[in-house]
Each structure stands twice: as C-alpha cells, then as structure tokens.
C-alpha cells in the first residue's frame, strides 16, 4: 500500500485513535511506528510476556480494535519515518533496510514526546536514565534497570514508574519531587471533573507509602558520581525557584537514578514539513500551530497527541480521534454535520481534562534553579560531548542562535539533533544573552531524523 489515503506517524494512543476514527469512515490508513507493536510508550506491549507484567488494558483494547479493522488499517511496526518532502511525501525505512516514499492524501503526525532531563554533573553516567527508559525495560521484558533505584524530577510520571518498579520487585530507595508538598496537596481542587485520575494518583502514593518508599518534596538531585557506572547521588532541598541549598546536601548510594522533569513534544516532523510553530512552555516547548480541527499550517497535515503539546494519554486519544475525523472530513469521507457533531463531543471530553492538566503543568513548570546545576565542565550536549564552558565561549564569541552555536561549538550537531540538549541549552543561552527563550528559537532539523544506513537509500544493485 504505497498510496494510502492517510499516513499516521506514531502508533501510541493518538495514532491508534486516529486510525480507528478514519478507518470507521472507510479510509485506508497506514500507521508507521518504530516500536515492536502498537502502543507507543504508555501502552507498550510486552515482547517477552512471560517475564513482563500484564500490559495496560487500554492498550490491549486499542490494539484489538485496530486488528479488527485490517481491511482499512495497515500497521508497519519497526518502521522509521525520517523525512517529509514535497507534497506530503514521507520517507520510511523498514527494519530490514528498505526505504520507501509514501505519498498519502493526508498526514497525521502523532509522534508523542520524549523526556526532559536537565544537564547536571554526572548525568551521562551509566545508570542515570529517564523514568521512561526504566519503564520500557519493565513493561516489555520485566528487566530491572538496576538494584537500588532513586527517582527524581517532577510530575506524577515519577510516581507511576516508582510503583511499576515496586511491583516488579525492584528496590526503590526514594522519589524526589522538586515542587513543594503544599502545591501537590492543592491539586485535588482541580480534579473534580476527572476523579479517576486523582484516584490513580492517590493509589500510587498509597502504594509507595505501604512499601515504605519515601516521597520527598521540594528536593532535587544536584550531582551524580561513579567510576564506570553510577554509585552515588547528591541531592538537596530547594526553594520555590528550585535553587538548591548547597549547605544541606545529602548523599545516597544508588546504582540507578531515573531523572525526568516532564516531556518535550517531538516536533521534528512538523518542523521538517514546514508547519508553523509556536513556543508554549506549559505544554513542553515548540509545538505546531493548529486550528480547531487540529490541522497544522500545511494543508493536509494534522497533528495530535503529546507531539503537538503534552497533555497526557487520555487527551492524546481524544485528539487522535479528532484528527482522524478531521482528516476524513478534509478528504470528503464524512459530511459536515456528522463531523461537527463528532468534533463537539470530543471537544467536551478534552475540556473536562483541562483543569487538572493545567494545574499539573503549573506545579511542574521548570524553574530557573535547574539551570544553576550546570558547571563549566558539565556536558550540555551528550552526543558530541560539549561542555557548558565550551558552549558559553562560542555564545560569547557571537554564536547566539541554534545554527551558529551548533556550527561553532558542535552542541546540537550530534545524532539526537538537539532533542535532549536544546531545551536547556536554549535556556542557558537566553540567560547569557539576557533575552527570552522564545527568541532563541527551536533547533533546526535535518533529515534523516533517525539513524539509517547509506545502504538503505541505495538501489539493490549497489548492495552487493
């Protein structure tokens, strides 16, 4: 199927919901997903069911629904969409290195988000990883990330992962939450429309309490040490702006540190397709500008889910459904009355989720204290091993944009194309230049967005 009506990039809750919605209107869809099975990050399917815990029922439901719609939905797992070219052409490479150009009539971007980790001394040590990385080990294979685990950062995701680790028998030492306890205690006031989510959160806290895993509020990790791997972490109490009190540093011996301060939308495909972006730090940073139908500024391209603004898996599913319907409407497969009715219903569901979401975002807003963790010899670009001292020297010599900084210091020139370093590097540069983060701009993107071999682009004849 080289010319499906709709290509959906991303097989998480948003992508799956979009495919289901569009397929129900009779449109052919192809879902491109890098994972081994549909589900994205949150609904990962075990690859070794024997060792892994039972998967999330919602993920199973969605996968089952898609399986029932095979006459309309083609699923390409393990495939990477690494470039968007003229006229909605998407370059996709398969696990066995075949590259193809798909040309749909509409494109739905649902790539999700990745985690936000501020640079700090020792953050590149083996054993320091994102909570999502640990979650992926547990959910798919029941493999532990380490023996003594600490979690640090902000947001309810830390609690969820801590509980998954406990269920898997992993020793969790503590969870450090940067925001204060009072801020969290006020949260239920905003959750009246989504009591289910509050209950979930309460159950997490309860399990942690039962397992005697302390949750310590108003604390952040300031540095990590180890020879070849992590073996020690320093943490300190922080004020409202998350500046650590370095007179009260505590040391903890752990071999695994899961650090996550929220999520960053994966906007690279939208950028490559030249969708206009806007800077919304409350939902993770640079996101494509969308209209009410979730259409981007490029005709035929829609965006849904965390990849267009972090709002959680429930919102992602609703947005996915809306994007699928919008694409169907755009292609004339559904009439205006039906579409408008569906859209209104979805909008109501989305608005119900908003109060709690906004309150959560507010609590976990990045505070300037995180920037103070970086020293001159701290790596700010993991891929190219560029220290803050080197990057700052380039900034002072006139490299004040992503392009110029990348070119002169090599920060952002690595394989991840600035995905992990730029959220903080741009803030550091903005502080240095005394301008706003928005003025610094997003990183520029280059295809291929993921590592592919040269061989995957060459015709068969050259492969021998």
């Amino acid at each position, binding site marked *: 199927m080289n010319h499906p009506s709709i290509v959906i990039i991303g097989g998480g809750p948003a992508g799956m919901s979009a495919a289901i919605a569009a397929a129900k209107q009779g449109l052919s869809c192809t879902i491109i997903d*890098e*994972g*081994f099975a549909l589900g994205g*990050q949150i609904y990962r399917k*075990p*690859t*070794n*069911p*024997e*060792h892994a815990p039972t998967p999330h029922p919602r993920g199973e439901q969605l996968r089952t629904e898609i399986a029932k719609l095979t006459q309309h939905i083609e699923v390409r797992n*393990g495939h990477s969409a690494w470039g968007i070219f003229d006229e909605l052409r998407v370059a996709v490479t398969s696990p066995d290195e075949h590259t193809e150009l798909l040309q749909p009539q509409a494109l739905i971007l649902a790539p999700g988000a*990745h*985690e936000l980790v501020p640079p700090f001394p020792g953050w*590149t*040590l*083996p*054993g*320091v*990883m*994102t909570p*999502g*990385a*640990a*979650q*992926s*080990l547990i959910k*798919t*294979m029941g*493999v*532990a*990330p*380490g023996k003594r685990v600490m979690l640090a950062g902000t947001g309810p995701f830390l609690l969820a992962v801590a509980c998954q680790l406990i269920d898997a028998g992993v020793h969790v030492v503590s969870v450090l939450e940067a925001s204060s306890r009072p801020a969290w205690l006020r949260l239920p006031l905003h959750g009246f429309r989504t009591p289910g989510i509050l209950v979930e959160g309460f159950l997490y806290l309860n399990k942690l309490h039962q397992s005697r895993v302390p949750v310590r509020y108003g604390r952040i990790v300031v540095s990590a040490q180890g020879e*070849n*791997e992590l073996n020690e972490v320093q943490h300190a109490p922080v004020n409202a702006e998350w500046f650590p009190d370095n007179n009260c540093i505590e040391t903890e011996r752990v071999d695994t540190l899961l650090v996550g301060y929220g999520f960053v939308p*994966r906007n690279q495909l939208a950028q490559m397709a030249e969708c206009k972006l806007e800077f919304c730090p409350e939902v993770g940073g640079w996101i494509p500008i969308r209209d009410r139908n979730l259409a981007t500024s490029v005709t035929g391209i829609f965006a849904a889910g965390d990849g267009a603004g972090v709002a959680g898996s429930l919102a992602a599913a609703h947005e996915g459904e809306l994007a699928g319907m919008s694409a169907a409407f755009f292609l004339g497969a559904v009439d205006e009355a039906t579409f408008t009715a569906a859209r209104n219903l979805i909008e109501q569901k989305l608005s119900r989720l908003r109060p709690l979401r906004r309150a959560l975002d507010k609590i976990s807003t990045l505070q300037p204290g995180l920037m103070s963790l970086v020293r001159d010899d701290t790596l700010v670009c*993991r*891929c*190219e*091993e560029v220290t803050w001292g080197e990057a700052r020297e380039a900034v002072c010599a006139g490299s004040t944009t992503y392009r110029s900084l990348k070119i002169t210091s090599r920060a952002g020139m*690595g*394989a*991840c194309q600035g*995905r*992990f370093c730029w959220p903080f590097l741009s803030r550091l540069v903005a502080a240095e230049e005394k301008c706003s983060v928005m003025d610094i701009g997003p990183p520029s993107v280059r295809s291929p967005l*993921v*590592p592919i*071999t040269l061989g995957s682009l060459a015709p068969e004849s050259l492969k021998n």
Partner: protein
Amino acid sequence: MEIEFILDGQAVHCPEGFTVIGALFHLGQRVVRMTAGTAAPRSLFCGMGVCCDCLMQINERTSVRACMTLVQPGMRVVSAQGAATTAYQV
C-alpha cells in the same frame, strides 16, 4: 525459550523477545559503549530511540540503537570503543 547470540566475541544467552539493551541488562552489563571524544562509558538513557546513546555495532551495521532492536539468534553485538568502524571486530 533462550536465544544464543555473540556479545563482544563471547556466546551468551537471553530469553526470547528481549531487546539488545534488555539482554545486556539481564546479563549484568550496563555499559554499552565508550564515547569517541573522551572514552566515557555510556548506557541506556531514554529507552525509546531518541537519544542515540545506546548505539552498538550489530552484525554489519556500525551503529544500531540497542533499545530498538530485538535479539535474534546468532546476532553479533559489539560494544563500540570510540567512533564507529567499518572494520568488524569480534
């Protein structure tokens, strides 16, 4: 069901359906490679194919994301020591 594969020249085993990174962690090896610039050890970081820290040499391919690759029987996995190389090391 256990699968046999070759890790840095040694035959090792892991359960079926494990990713390369999962197999390494299961075997007690977390260090995945040494960087090109400062020969610093690196490991799993994001677990979802974005950070490109877990790159290993797998069969003929110089750099493959270990967290996104399932172990296959007979697979040859090498922890890169520095920059990628086309000269396959066992």
